[in-house]
């Protein structure tokens, strides 16, 4: 175990987009592909600036759309580069074709999603619907709560992605508007210490274009002809195994980060004031700040409420969630997106699935808020806490609650 780094961290005040750009810079990324979209634009502009100023020694490839962005990065990663981009909303939708293919290729890379609600209705504001819409595609997805966490997670994501047992692309999600433009005091970890933490870039040599072993990547596999179904199943199972391995690797990497840099972020799930909690609320992303304030206030009034924040959403940390909720009699899950067809939020669905897999049934309710940039305030969380308290009493879950319905 390493000691906390000697070098003094540099303090800067910056927003989440700049913090992500600092993370990319400290991770010594070789290549960044760029296409601007609100609220991501300033992130890639910071990267272009850092390269022009000589802070980051990387190629900036300014292309004609997001489909090309990820295609360029696939080429770059195959050729052995450590690569990065960020996008959101319609950009992510347009990127879908190469996006869905990247994890199957087992190309480690990091892509920020500066989360934005999806069209239509037209909106350029924050919400998790974009990232949620691609939650089953096989990327690792982690949601950040603070500007500092955006920076630290962007760096950690490379070590997770490039880990031998994982070899998968990672989305670091930070909330459009709230984190993208919200400025905070941030510690920049020391460059040399960060390089030591990450080690040299580790591409997936199975897929990489290695001149010593010429090969063509991704021929037709499986189905009726060719090698038969077993090859396809082998790849799919391997991908699933990589996702499951990631649960362990994410925790190890967060542990090591805390040991080296003295800053601890929960890797999978954070428990906040859960020790003697009788009921809990569950959150994702930047809303957690206001939710924690509400929990503190409720606690000061003697209410036994706690909070469970999910950081790693894919792979879903089933065990960690079940353990975090072990002692409570009810849970209220707050989503910033919708699972169409279930009339509830996706995190709510996942929490129910995790609990039922563990043969544990507790009354649960879905709360949806913060769509298209709507504010989720401490007052909204008081409503969530109050309703969940009632649920713990009577065990009667009601309909999904739309928190900004009358705002």
């Amino acid at each position, binding site marked *: 175990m390493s000691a906390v780094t000697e070098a003094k961290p540099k303090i800067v005040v910056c927003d989440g987009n700049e913090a992500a750009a600092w993370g990319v810079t400290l991770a010594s990324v070789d290549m960044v592909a*760029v*296409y*601007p*979209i*609100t609220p991501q*634009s*300033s992130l*890639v*502009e910071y990267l*272009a*600036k850092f*390269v*022009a100023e000589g802070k980051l020694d990387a190629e*900036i490839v*300014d292309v*004609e*759309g*997001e489909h090309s962005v990820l295609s360029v990065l696939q080429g770059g990663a195959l050729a052995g580069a450590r690569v990065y981009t960020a996008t959101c909303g*319609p950009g992510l939708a*347009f990127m879908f074709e190469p996006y869905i293919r990247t994890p199957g290729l087992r190309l480690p890379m990091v892509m920020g999603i500066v989360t934005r609600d999806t*069209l239509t209705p*037209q909106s350029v504001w924050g919400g998790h619907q974009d990232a949620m819409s691609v939650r089953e595609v096989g990327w690792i997805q982690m949601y950040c709560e603070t500007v500092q966490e955006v920076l630290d997670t962007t760096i950690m994501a490379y070590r997770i992605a490039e880990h031998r047992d994982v070899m998968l692309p990672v989305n670091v999600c930070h909330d459009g508007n709230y984190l993208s433009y919200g400025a905070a005091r941030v510690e920049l970890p020391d460059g040399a210490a960060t390089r030591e933490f990450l080690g040299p870039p580790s591409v997936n040599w199975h897929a990489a274009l290695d001149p010593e072993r010429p090969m063509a990547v991704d021929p037709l596999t499986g189905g009726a002809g060719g090698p038969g179904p077993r090859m396809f199943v082998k790849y799919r199972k391997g991908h699933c195994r990589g996702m499951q391995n990631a649960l362990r690797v994410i925790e190890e990497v967060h542990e090591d980060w805390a040991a080296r840099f003295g800053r601890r972020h929960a890797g999978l799930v954070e428990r906040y004031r859960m020790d003697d909690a009788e009921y809990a609320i569950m959150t994702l992303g930047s809303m957690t700040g206001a939710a924690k304030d509400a929990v503190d206030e409720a606690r000061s009034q003697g209410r036994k409420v706690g909070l469970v924040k999910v950081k790693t959403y894919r792979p879903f940390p089933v065990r960690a969630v079940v353990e975090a909720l072990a002692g409570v009699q009810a849970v209220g899950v707050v989503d910033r997106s919708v699972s169409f067809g279930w009339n509830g939020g996706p995190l709510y669905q996942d929490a129910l699935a995790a609990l039922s897999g563990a043969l544990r049934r507790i009354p649960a309710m879905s709360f949806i808020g913060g769509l298209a940039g709507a504010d989720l305030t401490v007052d909204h969380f008081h409503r969530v806490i109050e309703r969940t308290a009632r649920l713990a009493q009577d065990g009667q879950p009601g309909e999904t609650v739309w928190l900004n319905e009358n705002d």
Partner: protein
Amino acid sequence: MNDFARPIFLEDKLPEIRDSGRLDYRSKTLPTWCPGCGYFAIVDGVTTALKREGIANHEAVIVSGIGCSSRFPFFVNTYGFHTLHGRALPVATGVKTANEALTVVAVGGDGDGFAIGGGHLPHACKRNVNITYLLLDNGIYGLTKGQTSPTSAQGFRTPTSPYENPDRPLNPLLMVLAYGASWVGQAYAGRPAQLLDLIRQAIAHRGFSYLHILSPCVTFDKTNRTYGNLDLQVRDLPAGHDPSDLQVAMAEAMNQEAPALGVYFRQERPTLGQALDSLVDKASGSRKHLAR
């Protein structure tokens, strides 16, 4: 010299606006564009052109992509659809193919048409779908706050090319001429009278008409495509330019230093709708569909 270099007096302007009838085509939404943006002249041009061509509000459809330019349908009182970034042309093709009676105008920016949506243009040109495409070229991504676009000058500095833009700009006119557009013209937002004339011709043309409109982004481009610079650069096509000669049109298009304004190329040939109809004739051996 642009048309705005002379002073404009309100008492002269108001009767002119009233007499043009263009307000019949303006929505109640006031444009959100920056004061001085070239796009105002283009809204005036399109609304006046619709009036002069006798096209009623309900007979016109304006289809846009995403960008400052693509906010166009909000400010015009016809049918309108604000599609996805880069997708105005396929949607406009769908509208026209389903209802030939409509006048369909696609509007978008240089990023919309030549970066993210660049794959659609060759096909709209070659199919000769009977729509008009107004390409509002400010050489920048305006809506996302001024990044480099495929028509930005080499060496241009923006937040995505803070050192300098290493790429050469595309040559949109040469591209659409090569793709087979049957009407190709260029206008400048600083010359609204000529702009109006060209919009009218483009709309009246039967087939795919492409009008490239040079338009300054006064907020994010202070150095390159400004009114001052464009005033010095633009020229009219030479007197006696023969718009039936594709090679001459291409030669003119190759001069990007002194962009020529006017009708570069014009050709009559079957439109997509006509081609589909004659295919039905050929396959069925009848002229049944004409009764529709």
